């Protein structure tokens, strides 16, 4: 019997193992806090296939209705579909029920404001304050909201995508897609029907008690089932989505995993020449390749702390037309054309469009970029010891360009590292990148710092 318990309440929202930490009462209270936080107006909701979403959906609807909001229930849909629907319905906000890349026993609530955007740091903080105070604005029996189901949002979402990408032009590509039993399957199946795309779907069955494999978005999960299929099926690319399809991992036509760090640079490469925006917004942990690609198109990179909120805070300080693309090195990318929402399917279409425009195979595009080697590690968190570790690291590596906005990032020409405390898990993350070859010595030294700090207490 598994006895792991988990509940995480943070600026990112509410997340945990259902029935072992994340309980109905958290769902009701957090949703009531969100209903209190939002201005009046309808709220759009949807869920991923996890069975626990059936329970959570009921609690979310009850709390939103109790705080006077009408609820527009999209049923089982991917997170980007919810975000598009919020904009279209001119809704006050939205909630996506789903734990994207977490294992099946997890679930979570993601909150969106008007126009489907993520909450800023200040907004997320206010939501947390309301939750902790538990002073909810509950309507009396004359002011309660109602719930209605809305079908067809997937088609309207596809209309939005088709307005930006030339779907007919992408028919030439064969892609193998690992849906990992997530909501991307529903969207992609409809895309195939509507646009005649040559997508071969695996793990398409959508049911909520088990996933074909861990829904993480990285080279290891790509290699499990998808990558080995690409070459035998003579596909031009392979794509892997997490459960709510806000992120994508990519395999080339050779069956090799493309580094998740390459997704943002490729999309920047496609979008930078197409619009007025010349800025790429990304976080401190993302590959330096993005700077090289931006420079090719006369663009530049704005780096912000890790996390959705920091990206949203940065986006808020620019005009939309100044920005070409924003994203992370994790395969999560957002585009101004879609009002900055992380969308793995839009990312896939952008990569296929780049292939079409260049007339190059995916492996050729990757090979055309300078080689960067990234090393990632983690160590258990000991919060008390972190400040000392950071000070020592800063003393040891003070000769580089130091950035302390999110842990410690130090950069030298063609080499950088970033050591920070995760927002979502009790770990210290270590990431280090070098052009030309992996910086093993630096990485091992950093990992020693991270591990020793853990061991000292």
């Amino acid at each position, binding site marked *: 019997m598994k006895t792991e318990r988990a509940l995480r309440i943070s600026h990112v929202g509410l997340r945990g193992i259902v029935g072992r930490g994340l309980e109905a009462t958290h769902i009701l209270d957090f949703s009531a806090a969100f209903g209190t936080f939002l201005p009046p107006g309808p709220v759009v909701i949807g869920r991923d296939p996890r069975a626990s979403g059936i329970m959570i959906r*009921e609690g979310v609807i009850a709390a939103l209705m109790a705080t006077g909001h009408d609820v527009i229930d999209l049923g089982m849909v991917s997170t980007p579909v919810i975000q598009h629907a919020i904009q279209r319905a001119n809704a006050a906000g939205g909630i996506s029920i789903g734990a994207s890349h977490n294992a099946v026993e997890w679930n979570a609530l993601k909150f969106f404001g008007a126009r489907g955007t993520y909450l800023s740091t200040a907004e997320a903080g206010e939501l947390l304050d309301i939750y902790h105070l538990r002073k909810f604005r509950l309507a009396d029996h004359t002011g309660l909201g109602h719930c209605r189901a809305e079908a067809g949002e997937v088609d309207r979402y596809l209309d939005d995508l088709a307005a930006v990408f030339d779907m007919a032009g992408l028919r030439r590509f064969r892609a193998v897609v690992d849906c990992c039993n997530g909501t991307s399957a529903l969207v992609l199946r409809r895309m195939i029907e509507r646009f005649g795309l040559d997508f071969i779907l695996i793990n398409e069955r959508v049911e909520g008690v088990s996933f074909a494999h861990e829904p993480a978005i990285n080279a290891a999960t790509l290699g499990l089932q998808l990558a080995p299929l690409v070459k035998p099926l003579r596909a031009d690319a392979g794509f892997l989505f997490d459960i709510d399809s806000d992120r994508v991992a990519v395999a080339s036509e050779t069956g090799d995993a493309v580094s998740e760090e390459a997704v943002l640079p490729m999309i920047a490469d496609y979008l930078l020449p197409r619009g007025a925006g010349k800025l790429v917004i990304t976080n401190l942990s993302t590959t330096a390749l993005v700077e090289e690609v931006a420079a090719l198109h006369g663009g530049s990179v704005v780096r912000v702390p890790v996390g959705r909120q920091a990206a949203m805070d940065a986006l808020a300080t620019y005009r939309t037309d100044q920005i070409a693309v924003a994203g992370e090195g994790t395969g999560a990318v957002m585009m101004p054309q879609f009002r900055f929402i992380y969308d793995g399917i839009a990312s896939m279409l952008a990569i296929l469009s780049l292939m079409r425009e260049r007339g190059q195979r995916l492996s050729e595009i990757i090979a055309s970029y300078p080689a960067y080697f990234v090393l990632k590690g983690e160590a258990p968190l000991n919060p008390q010891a972190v400040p000392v570790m950071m000070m020592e690291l800063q003393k040891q590596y003070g000769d580089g360009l130091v950035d302390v906005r999110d842990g410690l990032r130090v950069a030298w020409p063609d080499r950088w590292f970033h050591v920070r405390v995760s927002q979502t898990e009790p770990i210290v993350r270590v990431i280090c990148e070098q052009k030309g070859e992996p910086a093993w010595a630096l990485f091992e030294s950093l990992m020693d710092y991270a591990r020793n700090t853990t061991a000292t207490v």
Partner: protein
Amino acid sequence: MREHRLKVGVSGIRGVVGEYLTPSLASSYAQAFGTFVGPGRVVLGRDTRSSGEMLQHAVACGLLATGCEVVDVGIQPTPTIQVYVGATRARGGISLTASHNPPEYNALKLFNHQGLFFNHYERRELLDIFYESEFRTATNNEIRRVVHDVETPPRMHIERVVRHVDVERIKTRRFRVALDGVNGAGSELSCHFLEHTLGCDLRAISVDPTKPFPREAEPRPDTLGELQALVRRDQAEIGFGQDPDGDRLAIVDETGEVLDNDEVLALVVDAVLGSLPGDVAVNLTTSSVIDDIAAAHGRKVYRTPVGEANVVEMMQAVKAVIGGEGSNGGIIFPAVQYCRDSYTGMAFVLDLMERTGLPISQLAARMPKYFRKSGKVTFEHGRLGPVMRDLEDAFPQATVDRRDGLKLLLDRGAWIHVRASNTEPLLRYAVEAKDSAQVEDLYRMVRERI
């Protein structure tokens, strides 16, 4: 004095929706219920109150969180839900209804696997689980689904009711019937039942479940003015008035007068005892007319504290054939289901009118005549005791029954009953006697002591 806008207790949970009866509280109570009945099917339905939709989601959330499967039957009368729970072998059921309470209230009515109100043992266990918050919590793979079944419950209910009356003859008679559905959970079912099942010429008002209650929810002589007017205008032979969840029934006779609820119960008891063996169980506040009728049929009457669950428990214990709560318009006929059921009442009364060929006013007039008077005052803790002692001293010759407040039995079927309400902060009192002067006397004596 604290306003009783929320009451969590052995009779369930009831309160003003919003600041008091919150979705969180409803969900927690449902979790306690789900923990108690165990992981299996639980039937969930509601009346037409505006808060019902919201609370239904909250309760479904709580039930699912404990690993129950939710069978959503939508808007249904309470007796319909009870029949369905019992017939489908569900683990239990929940009806979201505050019955006759005002629209700002709502409540959870809880049923066991037989579709019966929780008895006092079950209620106590449930309450312990609720207070301790020791809920069963299902993990992802244990969480079950919500299924919808709005068609089966009313069909099952009506099938059971019509087994006990002569439908074909009632149909042939084509009664002109008026109905006031209070825009409640029974609105659609009642129209279908009277018009199609029993072939009546139906004149209905307030049968739109999407609209708010047009009158005070409790069907009483002072709330049924529109129904009375309808009966007179359309020259209906009878008028039926329901409460929002379809368990209570009030009757207007062909002259437009509202019959006393005890008289309605008496009519049905008389009809049932005339054709079936068995005894009778009623609550302590029900009229002595029931004793007279039972005596005429050579049967016994068992008395219980007020409350449907109490009457049902007694009926099961003594295998009573019929029972009810006269004072609040409830007829309980176990062959349909151990619950108050306005549909059974309507069918029996129409059947009786068809068999006798008599108008309802004359049928009522055939019953032994008693006069009743009742009242209520705002309850204050510690007030009932002195009132009881005073009254007992004032009637030293009376037979005393202390099972629910104080009931004093006097000569010739006369009685006095004072008690605390189970659901509201009220002290209720009632008196009954064979002549109206004595009733006035008794009433005055009680008033003086309260």
